[in-house]
């Protein structure tokens, strides 16, 4: 079994274990205010970091594709215009694909 398979299985089973813990642990553990605040901030900090690494991470060096940046900028415009997730997503990949086609 390759390392990648092992990693896939650990991540998959781990994710299920987290969900199971959520419906099994005594409520007092998860309802602690500090624990809840951390849990609330966790996806916010990580999603922000993921946007950055998706855009600039070239494997321990900075790398940017301006077409992806432009696609994301178009996506941000859709977010500001309060469009749904699907529109944001389609516009972002559409603009990137179009720029790649012409440039």
């Amino acid at each position, binding site marked *: 079994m390759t390392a990648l398979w092992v990693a896939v299985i650990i991540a998959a089973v781990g994710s299920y274990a987290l969900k199971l813990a959520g419906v099994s642990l005594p409520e007092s553990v998860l309802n602690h205010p500090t624990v809840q605040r951390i849990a609330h901030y*966790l996806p916010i*900090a990580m*999603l922000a970091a993921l946007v950055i690494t998706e855009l600039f991470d070239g494997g321990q060096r900075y790398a940017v594709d301006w077409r992806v940046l432009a696609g994301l900028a178009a996506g941000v415009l859709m977010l500001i215009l309060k469009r749904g997730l699907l529109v944001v997503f389609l516009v972002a*990949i*559409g603009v990137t694909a179009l720029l790649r086609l012409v440039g």
Partner: protein
Amino acid sequence: MTQPHAGPPAGSGPELPAAVRRDILRSAAGLGLYAGAFGASYGAVAVASGLSVPQAMVLSLVLFSGASQFAFAGVLAAGANPFAAIPAALLLGVRNAFYGVPVTELLGPRWPARLWTAHFVIDETTAMAVGRPTRPEQRYAFWATGLVLFTLWQAGSLTGALLGSSVDPAAFGLDAAAPAVFLALLWPALRRGRRDRLVRVRLVAFAGAALALLLIPVAPAGMPVVAAAGIAVVAGLAPPGREPRGADAEEPA
């Protein structure tokens, strides 16, 4: 704890009016449509990141949490060691554990029903269940959303993974898919909520992004994202200020 429930998962009270059911199913179908489209993009991105079609599908079937799956693929695409993708995916999945609290309160699953209820505790099912006024509606909303979403997420993932292995995902701009998804998921948190909390939420997002940016050249792939989790811990441990009182309280930034 209220009315424990150990019955079959899809079982819904016969007392539920047809109109309510239709309403719930319509919302679930709308979410399912998104799930299908996102699933397709996930499948294509996953395959482009180096996962095989079966590996991409194991993540969809068992991990079953969109943001975590995108994160796994994203970290994998950026770096060498596949194990670096695990902490990013799991830390993002921590929120699902916290959804367990309202879901348990509303659905009251007992053993062994907890085993299969747990699998469906994600953003959408929790939001749909919490948004309903009565227990039968909440239970129906949870399961209808969960099963529709699960089915369409799998169908989408498989389609995307198969298509992604036969075409060049970059030509379709799919490398913009993951950042767009992450930003779209983050966006509502940055825009909505009480003013004093919003300041801190934006600060956390900014600090997470800045730390990740600084760490890119020095930390191994995957670590910039995990390090950002540290920002959340620090922000969570910091005193919450005057949170419980007035919504307009100024947050010392």
